[in-house]
């Protein structure tokens, strides 16, 4: 309801000031009206969950660009289009304005009908493709290669180093992994749209496909955690307090069965003194996580496995797999991420384009001295003839014959190419 009121009021203002811009005789008034329209649009951006756009709309558009306009208007003294010499500069077509209005109206009607017919608001949000990565917890000495339906997910992965996420189409996959010594793992998994997956190879030929929640973290200054249990015992995550003693144990994630993934929890940023313990022996530290830094807007999956070391013996390991949670929709951070990934090319082109326009401004306005000066014929439509200005300064009657005589007689416009 609030949005509707905002929409009606602000939208109405935008249209009203746009019309004012269209009708105003004075260019400065037009520019100011346009600024109001732009600010209105910025407000609408906010209503549309586009804070970043609202921000640059105000700064770049309403600010920088419009200042440039105003500056040029004032520089040229072009607030009003002065009536040029009789006959010049007026389109003599009486049909012009009516035709323009008719065409504009037909455009509005045709496009309006189309938009209403189009009914885009019935459409669903697009499902993003699933993304997938792999990590090798099976062996500290061997490297791991993982494929999903033949698509290479990670190749020659060293121990504990997760691969990059890759994008993949949703669907059922046969995921297989192979260690460099030849032993192989396999399982099948259904990958759903919009989810991130981590393939973990651990134990003796075990392969887990763990879904990770990377959606935007609603709470501020918080991080998200989940625990995956890759051992054959039930595990819990406990907070052992600043002293790291068992006394003030506080269970954070309780009793995760072997092979299960806990529900995710949200924690405020700060430092955690945690330990993973066996549910059967909560006072014994199975794996310590001391001074663990909780970074906001991160989504972390703790993976608990028994890792085989170089000697072949198994020892406990909890590997935190940290990923950036998806930034809030339309936030500057989200835009920034896009700019440096998918839209790198247009971004670079934009830089080159701005350079081109700078060169252009220099070329067009910089005149080398000694070049041709404006001819007498071209000087005749100075908005306020210099002679008048001087005359006013020195106190001579500005419309006097002498002041006019100082200016050359305007020549009739040359008809060229008739």
């Amino acid at each position, binding site marked *: 309801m609030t949005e509707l009121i905002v929409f009606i009021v602000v939208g109405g203002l935008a249209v009203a000031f746009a019309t004012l811009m269209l009708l105003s005789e004075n260019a400065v008034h037009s520019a100011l009206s346009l600024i109001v329209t732009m600010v209105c649009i910025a407000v609408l951006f906010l209503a*549309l969950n586009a804070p970043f*756009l609202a921000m640059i709309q105000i700064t770049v558009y309403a600010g920088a660009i419009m200042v440039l306009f105003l500056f040029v208007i004032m520089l*040229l003294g072009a607030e009003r289009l002065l009536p040029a010499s009789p006959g010049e500069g007026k389109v003599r077509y009486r049909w012009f304005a009516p035709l323009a209005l008719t065409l504009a109206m037909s455009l*509005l009607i045709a496009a309006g009908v189309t938009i209403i017919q*189009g009914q885009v608001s019935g459409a669903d949000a697009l499902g993003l493709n699933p993304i997938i990565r792999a990590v090798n917890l099976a062996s500290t000495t061997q490297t791991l290669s993982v494929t999903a339906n033949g698509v290479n997910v990670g190749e020659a992965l060293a121990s504990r180093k997760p691969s990059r996420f890759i994008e993949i189409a949703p669907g059922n996959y046969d995921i297989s992994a192979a260690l460099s010594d030849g032993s192989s793992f396999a399982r099948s998994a259904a990958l759903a749209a919009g989810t991130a997956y981590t393939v973990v190879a651990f134990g003796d030929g075990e392969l887990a496909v763990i879904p990770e929640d990377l959606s935007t973290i609603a709470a501020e200054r918080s991080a998200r955690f989940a625990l995956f249990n890759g051992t054959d015992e039930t595990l819990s995550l406990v907070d052992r307090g600043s002293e790291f003693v068992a006394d003030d144990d506080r269970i954070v994630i309780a009793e995760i069965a072997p092979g299960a993934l806990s529900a995710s929890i949200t924690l405020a940023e700060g430092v955690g003194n945690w330990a993973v313990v066996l549910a059967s022996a909560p006072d014994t530290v199975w794996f310590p996580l001391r001074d663990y830094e909780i970074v906001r807007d991160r989504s972390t999956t703790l993976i608990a496995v028994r890792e085989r070391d170089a000697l072949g013996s198994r020892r406990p390991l909890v590997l935190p797999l940290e990923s950036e949670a998806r930034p809030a929709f*339309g936030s500057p951070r989200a835009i920034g991420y896009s700019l440096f990934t998918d*839209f790198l090319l247009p971004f670079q082109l934009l830089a080159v384009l701005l350079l081109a326009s700078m060169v252009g401004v220099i070329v067009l306005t910089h005149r080398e001295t000694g070049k041709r000066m404006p001819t007498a014929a071209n000087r005749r439509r100075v908005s306020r003839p210099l002679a008048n200005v001087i005359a006013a300064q020195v106190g001579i009657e500005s419309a006097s014959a002498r002041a006019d005589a100082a200016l050359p007689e305007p020549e009739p416009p040359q008809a060229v190419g008739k």
Partner: protein
Amino acid sequence: MVQTEAYLMLSMVLFVLGTMGVLLRRSAILVFMSVELMLNATNLALAAFARQWGSENGHMFAFFIITVAAAEVAVGLALIVAIFRTKRSINIDELHQLEG
């Protein structure tokens, strides 16, 4: 939530107002401002679509349009200044040496 169509209609109205400005105003500066209005209207449509689809490409597009508009305005105003120096007028109807 206000429907996307409503935003689109608003953007279309602004776009057409901009079009009319290009057609009806004789001052080159106002013609440029009208073009800016058209681009703004486009941005509004893009933001509405972006919310509809939950995809940020629309925001990206709008960002690029705003920046490109800045570049365009710089060149356009430079052209106006150059012509004003030669011709002492920014009335685009006075530019018709080339015809036929």
